[in-house]
């Protein structure tokens, strides 16, 4: 088997994976689209739901989802990246214990985060059911995932850069903005995509924290029902809600593509990556 032969074989065998991913998306879109597509029209995106969601639109849900996404990513990103930089570049020892803690916490069921959020943010801090409580709780939930992936990204940056920087008498932090973070930005982008995807996919957390009220949240302390919770309510709790659940899911799919693609580009824009 010549090298080129091995490459052709590998190309075909490995190629099954991305093609299968595309087919999987097609399955999901068709599965959801069959029931949902007829329900989606302009008013569906601008009106509030009536009859417990069986009619009317999902405007309040779009707003609630936007709120928790901005609050969630907004509050998780800065401390998450800072923690990852500390662990990868400055920590003296004991990082393995932190890494283990993060892995364990990334595996907690989301319903447990939901109950914690309700007890801590809604009751203890008095935010009540609100998009703020939802956003902060999901921020805590995605923090371990985000820190873990960003740290792994930084650790994988070639050591030559750090040695070259040190040889020029530069402290490590000088290299962050222009050398280390840009070099790690593909993995940081992936971490951001997964974190924002997780926020959009989450229902259990928000059921207990952001609430399920079908009114558009105008302030941080107002409750709101995110798209995933709306899909859950319609699909599982509200008799006859199946078609509207599918329609909402279809709208969410479009929202996911937009959000995650945006999230993927964010690191490049922020870090002004010069030529590798």
């Amino acid at each position, binding site marked *: 088997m010549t090298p080129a032969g091995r490459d052709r074989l590998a190309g075909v065998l490995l190629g099954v994976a991305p093609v299968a991913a595309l087919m999987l998306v097609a399955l999901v879109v068709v599965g959801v689209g069959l029931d949902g597509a007829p329900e989606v029209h302009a008013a569906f995106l601008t009106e509030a739901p009536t009859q417990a969601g069986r009619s009317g639109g999902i405007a309040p849900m779009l707003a609630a989802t936007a709120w928790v996404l901005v609050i969630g990513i907004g509050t998780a990103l800065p401390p998450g990246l800072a923690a990852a930089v500390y662990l990868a570049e400055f920590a003296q020892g004991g990082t393995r214990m932190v890494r283990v803690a993060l892995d364990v916490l990334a595996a907690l069921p989301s319903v447990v985060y939901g109950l914690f959020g309700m007890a801590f943010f809604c009751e203890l801090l008095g935010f009540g059911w609100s998009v703020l409580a939802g956003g902060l709780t999901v921020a805590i939930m995605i923090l371990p995932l985000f820190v873990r992936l960003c740290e792994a990204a930084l650790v994988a940056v070639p050591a030559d850069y750090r*040695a*070259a920087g040190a*040889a*020029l008498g530069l402290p490590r932090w000088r290299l962050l903005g*222009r*050398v280390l973070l840009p070099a790690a930005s593909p993995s940081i982008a992936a971490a951001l995509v997964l974190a924002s995807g997780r926020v959009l996919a989450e229902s259990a957390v928000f059921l207990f924290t952001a609430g399920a009220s079908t009114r558009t949240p105008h302030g941080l302390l107002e409750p709101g029902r995110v798209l995933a919770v709306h899909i859950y309510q319609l699909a599982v709790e509200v008799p006859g809600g199946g078609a509207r659940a599918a329609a909402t899911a279809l709208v969410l799919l479009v929202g996911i593509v937009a959000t995650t693609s945006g999230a993927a580009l964010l690191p490049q824009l922020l870090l002004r990556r010069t*030529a590798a």
Partner: protein
Amino acid sequence: MSAGPSAVELRAVSVRYGDHVAVDRADLVAPAGVITALVGPSGSGKSSLLFAVNRLHDLDRSVTVTGDLRLGALDLAKAPGDALRTRIGLVFQRPAPFPMSILENVTFALRAHGAPRSELPGRAEHALRRAALWDEVQDRLTRPAASLSGGQQQRLCLARALALEPEALLLDEPCSALDPRSTALIEDTLLGLRGSTTVLLVTHNLAQARRVASRCVCLWPAPGGGRVTDAGPIDRVFEAPATRELADYFRGATG
């Protein structure tokens, strides 16, 4: 930045990776403004000793360095790591340009150490000229450093180090991966530094050592760690080495 070149003096310096001893109580003197070659077969601890001088081992906690290290009057063990590395430059065996443009590679460290923005273009041009790279890059300074050839990248790294006008410059087999023309250009640069910068050059290329260096220190591998077996003016060391192994080593290389 610095008054003038200072001598690098090591007394009984040992380098240990955990329990493995790389260098065993080595003495080395690199007189101010002079080019000293550090030669010896691989595994004699040449690079380990070189990296002890500018304390690059600080990056790796499993390495311990003992003994007395001085740059002129400065005790290298006590000086703050970053500050001393602005006074001792280092060029690696494998070129490692930053993922930035050619110009930024040179000015990044200068800017970070507080050089006023206005001075940067001038000092960058001066450094690039000293590294014999200016003519080849002056019209594409904003192109990424990665677009340069291997030899050009190494000269860029040399320019980057010289830009800080260090008192001493350490080079770890800088030309082992380069073409003869780039090697010749780097050797001319080093010769140009005589009188202004103390140079300590680790090299396998004994002919290069004869061409460039005026003093030579020989390290020889031993079970207890690399030891200095000879040191002195390069001609005396090459013609009448202190040990038979060195004689065979020199004859093998130049015979």
